[in-house]
């Protein structure tokens, strides 16, 4: 009798994964509890700043009418930086500024709160201020609920969906991760800097609700990682992501690395005079397929960052959409399993199938090697100098000397920076295979 469930589904974590999982389960009529350890959903959550909410078309029609969006990204730049140079690829399109939109900047304490509100409206019981501290197991070893840190805090359910984010102690306790390794994680630190809206519009060349998304490499003071700069309505988010073992093995602290990036001649004019509004930090599961856990065990599924489903492949930093989608698929699989009366691994197989058939795992498979390539020492420390050098020499007019041939420049720059031809060819091929 001990295993008698109090509810059908417990979803742990009120982030995007948890909110979508709870929304789907509750909408299908399952009694659903959504646990969140913060005082409200989103209060513990930090990210760079751009969501890609198209997956919400399926859950919240016309989501863009109510979502707490700061700006719609209509301009996306990728910058390669050295200490004194910057090479920027800049793309802008009107299309991303109209329904159904593409990317949008939003604050997570707003966005997650809004999304969890939809789960509540669908009938999920949102319980905040409550941390799940462990799993309950039935006689057969099957997971039958969670223990929370409230008095009388055990809660039993047919299924537990762990959406507890990057540190997921639940997935670890359930034995879904074979091992975890610091090298698979990056630390993100960020400053939210206040600037008047007109100043942002002018400096970034946008109007109204249009916004800018800038990704950078070569700006992290020799620690493998990358930088980002996003525009909100009246603030900009500036931050870096740093590979943990590399960060730990040198002397610069995270905020110093941001400070240096902010002083770069290509960045400084964009954020001059801005006041610090909030400083924040969070880990990212960076290694994609190389670190993913098993997605299900008897009585439990894992979704979002807890399942390392964040796609952090260099110039892509997409986690919220992967979290929302995986949460949604987890919810669908649970509805199916509960209806069929089998919540064991077999019964929950619909989850893995959905992940495999959709962008969630397709993108991860395609970009399998991207994190490794983008965070590799050559890409991080040598190529920025090489491509910046090439650009400089192509565009520099050294009259009376005639323009050098591109091939000559390439060779000379490669040598100057110290890249072997063999490595360049191999990296080029790898790059093509991965991103091509």
């Amino acid at each position: 009798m001990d295993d008698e469930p109090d509810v059908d589904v417990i979803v742990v974590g009120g982030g995007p994964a948890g909110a979508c999982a709870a929304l789907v389960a509750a909408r299908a009529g399952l009694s659903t509890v959504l646990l969140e350890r913060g005082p409200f959903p989103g209060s513990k959550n930090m990210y760079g700043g751009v969501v890609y909410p198209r997956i919400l078309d399926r859950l919240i029609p016309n989501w863009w009418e109510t979502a707490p969006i700061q700006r719609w990204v209509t301009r996306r730049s990728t910058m390669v930086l050295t200490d004194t140079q910057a090479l920027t690829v800049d793309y802008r399109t009107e299309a991303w500024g109209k329904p159904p939109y593409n990317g949008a900047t939003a604050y997570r304490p707003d966005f997650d709160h809004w999304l969890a509100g939809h789960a509540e409206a669908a009938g999920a019981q949102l319980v905040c201020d409550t941390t799940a501290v462990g799993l309950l197991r039935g006689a057969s070893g099957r997971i039958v609920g969670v223990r929370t840190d409230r008095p009388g805090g055990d809660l039993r359910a047919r299924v537990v969906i762990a959406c507890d984010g990057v540190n997921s102690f639940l997935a670890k306790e359930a034995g879904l991760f074979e091992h975890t390794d610091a090298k698979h994680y990056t630390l993100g630190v960020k400053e939210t800097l206040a600037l008047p809206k007109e100043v942002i519009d002018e400096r970034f060349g946008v109007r109204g609700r249009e916004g800018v998304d800038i990704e950078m490499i070569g700006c992290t003071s020799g620690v493998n990682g990358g930088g980002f700069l996003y525009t909100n309505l009246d603030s900009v988010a500036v931050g870096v992501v740093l590979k943990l073992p590399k960060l730990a093995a040198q002397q610069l602290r995270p905020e110093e690395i941001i400070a240096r990036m902010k002083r770069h001649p290509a960045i400084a004019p964009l954020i001059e005079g801005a006041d610090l509004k909030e400083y924040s930090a969070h880990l990212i599961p960076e290694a994609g397929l190389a670190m993913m856990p098993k997605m299900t065990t008897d009585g439990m599924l894992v979704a979002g960052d807890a399942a390392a489903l964040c796609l952090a492949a260099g110039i892509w930093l997409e986690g919220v959409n992967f979290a929302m989608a995986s949460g949604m698929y987890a919810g669908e699989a649970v509805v199916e399993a509960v209806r069929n009366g089998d919540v064991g691994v077999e019964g929950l197989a619909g989850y893995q199938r959905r992940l495999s058939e959709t962008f969630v795992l397709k993108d991860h498979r395609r970009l399998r090697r991207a994190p490794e390539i983008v965070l590799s020492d050559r890409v991080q420390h040598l190529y920025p100098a090489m491509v910046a050098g090439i650009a400089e020499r192509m565009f520099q007019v050294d009259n009376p000397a005639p323009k050098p041939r591109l091939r000559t420049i390439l060779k000379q720059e490669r040598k100057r920076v110290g890249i072997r031809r063999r490595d360049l060819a191999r990296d080029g091929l790898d790059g093509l295979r991965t991103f091509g």
Partner: protein
Amino acid sequence: MSDEWPQVSFEDRMSTVEFRVHERAHIVVDGAKCADCSTRACVVACPANLFVPTSDGGIVFNYEQCFECGTCYMVCNEEGAISWSYPEGGFGVVFRRT
């Protein structure tokens, strides 16, 4: 490069963040283990700068302004030096604009 970047003191930096501090520490550092540590990885990596080395080779740790990010236990050099958990529900960091 402009040298005139207004420096925000670390204290001011952390004062932009709301922390609802619980009376019980959610992270405990075993100073004895730290004495043997050669890397001091936590000192450079903790984004909240909560690990401070002491002159006698120990570490002073204060849990109050913690982002609950997990960096410290991931980079820690000595097995078991850090006992890490989340603060009691409702306590700890509360973000607003991130």
